[in-house]
């Protein structure tokens, strides 16, 4: 089995979000970039397939040279090879076209992407790829078992979960649940050393349209003053929620 894990390079979840250049760009000053958490759960599951079922594991990202430390981390965790498509990932359709091209040429059986990147929250790249390639697709995937060609997956639905039967080739949009948080791996020194020797191929982007673009950004209005209620007077909260906030 040949697996491709698609990785987004995103700000760490604790990052403060600011915008720059007249509110037209995300301000990366002082921001630490990491493997998108949803992708990291997928990468960790892919490592299981590599170690237990002998899968070959490649990772790919769409991004500039600045994303290479993040891809190297995926190699240090255990991916065999990496591909970087040299373009700015500003639109989901464009990114999906780039990755679909890699899938088409690479003969992958399983493509694992995250349910969404935690920066722009588009959540569309794996689904668009599935449509472009005519492949099976399971989104918000929280469990994945593969036996030869047969796939049993579980996806999270609103208020529960759904068990799905399908087959390879398959694309999934993964998230927490695919593996436990405690299963996530921190690269060790040996992994980091080995990652330096592994192949990181840089390819040019293919011609593809940008279907959307972000013109400008803004931040939520600052929160007004909180109203504190004495713990001995809980009835006041009920009264405020009814008469002032009008939510009950």
């Amino acid at each position, binding site marked *: 089995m040949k697996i491709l894990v698609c990785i987004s390079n995103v700000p760490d979840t604790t990052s403060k979000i600011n915008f720059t250049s007249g509110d037209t760009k995300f301000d990366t000053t002082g921001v630490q970039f990491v493997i998108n958490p949803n992708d990291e759960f997928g990468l960790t599951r892919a490592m299981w397939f590599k170690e237990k079922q002998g899968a070959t594991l490649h990772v790919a990202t769409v991004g500039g040279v600045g994303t290479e430390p993040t891809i190297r981390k995926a190699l240090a965790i255990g991916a065999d090879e990496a591909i970087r498509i040299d373009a700015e990932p500003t639109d989901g359709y464009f990114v999906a076209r780039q990755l679909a091209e890699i899938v088409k040429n690479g003969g992958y059986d399983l493509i694992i992407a995250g349910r969404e990147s935690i920066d722009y929250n588009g959540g569309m790249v794996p689904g668009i790829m599935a449509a472009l390639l005519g492949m099976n697709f399971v989104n918000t995937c929280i469990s994945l078992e593969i036996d030869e060609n047969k796939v049993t997956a579980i996806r999270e*639905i609103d208020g529960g979960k759904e068990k799905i039967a*399908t087959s390879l080739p398959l694309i999934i949009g993964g998230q927490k649940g695919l593996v436990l948080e405690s299963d996530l791996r921190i690269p060790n020194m040996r992994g980091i050393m080995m990652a330096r020797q592994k192949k990181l191929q840089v390819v040019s982007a293919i011609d593809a349209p940008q279907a959307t673009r972000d013109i400008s950004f803004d931040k939520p209005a600052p929160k007004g003053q909180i109203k504190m209620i004495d713990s001995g007077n*809980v009835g006041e*909260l009920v009264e405020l929620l009814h008469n002032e906030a009008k939510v009950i």
Partner: protein
Amino acid sequence: MSVLVYTESENRKFKKNAFEVAAYAFEVARIMGTSVTAIAFHAEAPEDLGGYGVSRVLNVTTDTLQTFNARAYASVIAQAAQKEDATVIVISSSTDSRFLGAILAGKLKAGYVPNVVAAPESIAPLVVRRTVFSNKGFAHSQIDAAVSIIGVSNNAFGQKENAVEATVEGFEPTTSDSDFSTKSVEIDKVPGKTTIADADIVVSGGRGLKGPENWGMIEELAAVLGAATACSKPVSDLGWRPHSEHVGQTGKPVASNLYVAIGISGAIQHLAGVSASKVKVVINSDPEAPFFKAADYGIVGDAFQVIPELIEKLKEFKAQNA
């Protein structure tokens, strides 16, 4: 050239978000000077959409399309869009809609913008405001493709009523075997339970509750309020509650009218995930908990005293206002 809206149903009844996306589509159609056509699957009362501005309903009653299948449904919606010559398609932000929305965008080479929080800022070009960075920011996004898909954020636009006469038509799409190559085997869901995605009110518990055995009062508070229950990340990581209840940046987003956080300190990732909620109440024994800075109402106190009392007061309130 109408605006097409996909209105979700469950057990043949429209979900709450169906009326919200219909109202949104009506607003888009009003600005464009056109009308709204809805696509529904096995809806019991498709004409109800007329209350929210839908003039025509294509109600699919094909046997094989009774239960949700993202690929098959996306294929049907794509066919409806082509039949209607729709340039704008409106969907919700439910898990199912986001699943099929991406497939639909790929099929139609459409520009898809999810998490949209307001009516379009302009129609030509189409510009919409959406949340980014897990609610820590907003983007004004322009769609440059021939077909646009707008995913409306839950609870962001409201179920605005616009009564029109809705005509209901059958619609017989063509499907192929490949549309059904992912099959639903089993659905594990408590019937009738309010979900985080649909709830007007969400009651959420954190590590401050000390253990899963103490969730009875959270459930009771939720029952009194007609609310869904949720939890913080540590609580789901510890296995006290299922992952489907985890709200926050890597869990589910919450956009309810009222969010009640009990024993949750308010990590930045949690605050991001719930910030779209309109009114936030924080109950915590630690007056320094960061959540107080992001809340509307706060009580510093022991949850084990405050919550039972709150339940009593709410019951009294309900009895008086019944």
